[in-house]
């Protein structure tokens, strides 16, 4: 297995684990909030599914962006640095995506609450 494949797999597994953790942590609260605000089960379902898709695709994009210049016989810490650099990108993307989602939820909350 080439160093690039090892880095790719490590970043893929780590990104998926982190995204699943974030999804698990946020989902119950998000569901409660959406149920209260939108008062339409289909809309709650849509926003939750959209959230899951976004999180999965961010993890996928982060792993696919992995391309390190590691040579055969690279040392352990070189692998760690390569993975850390990719994870930094993954977190950056996740941060941007969560920011957009929070913005969207705020607009949803503000506009629909006012109408209630």
């Amino acid at each position, binding site marked *: 297995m080439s160093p690039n494949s090892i880095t790719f797999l490590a970043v893929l597994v780590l990104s998926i684990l982190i995204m699943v953790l974030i999804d698990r942590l946020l989902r119950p609260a998000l569901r409660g909030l959406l149920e209260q605000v939108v008062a339409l089960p289909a*809309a709650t379902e849509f926003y939750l599914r959209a959230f899951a898709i*976004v999180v999965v695709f961010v993890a996928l994009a982060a792993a696919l962006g992995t391309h390190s210049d590691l040579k055969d016989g690279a040392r352990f810490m070189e692998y760690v640095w390569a993975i850390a650099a990719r994870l930094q990108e993954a977190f950056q993307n996740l941060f941007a995506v969560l920011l957009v989602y929070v913005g969207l939820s705020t607009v949803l909350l503000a506009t629909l609450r006012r109408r209630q």
Partner: protein
Amino acid sequence: MSNEHYLIVSYFVVGLVSLCLGIAVYRVLRTPFAAIAEAATGRLRSRVLTRALGIFMTLAAALGFLSVSYTEKGCMSYEAVVKNRDYLVQVNQQQLQRTADWTVAAVFLWCVVVLICLLALRSAQADRHDKT
């Protein structure tokens, strides 16, 4: 497998995978979206909106795939592209990455469409409430 053979096979396989990703996202979102659209706009318009969702998601995925250039917009020759297998793999990864990026952007856009549908639904409900 020669690099040229790999280039041809991987291009079409990755293209197909990208399209399948777009269709998969559409299928995941279709049922709740159709219900929202029907509640907000009625059956006929909801069908149009649901089809638009499908076309949009597939187009976003295809756009992501097509936005990656093997020759870096004409800066590299075909021979230089084919010479390096690592480069070919990297481009395939980039194609899938762009597909994911464009799909995420499209999903966010449709979240806004749903918000507008919900607002329309609320307005209609408020009007009905005022009349009674």
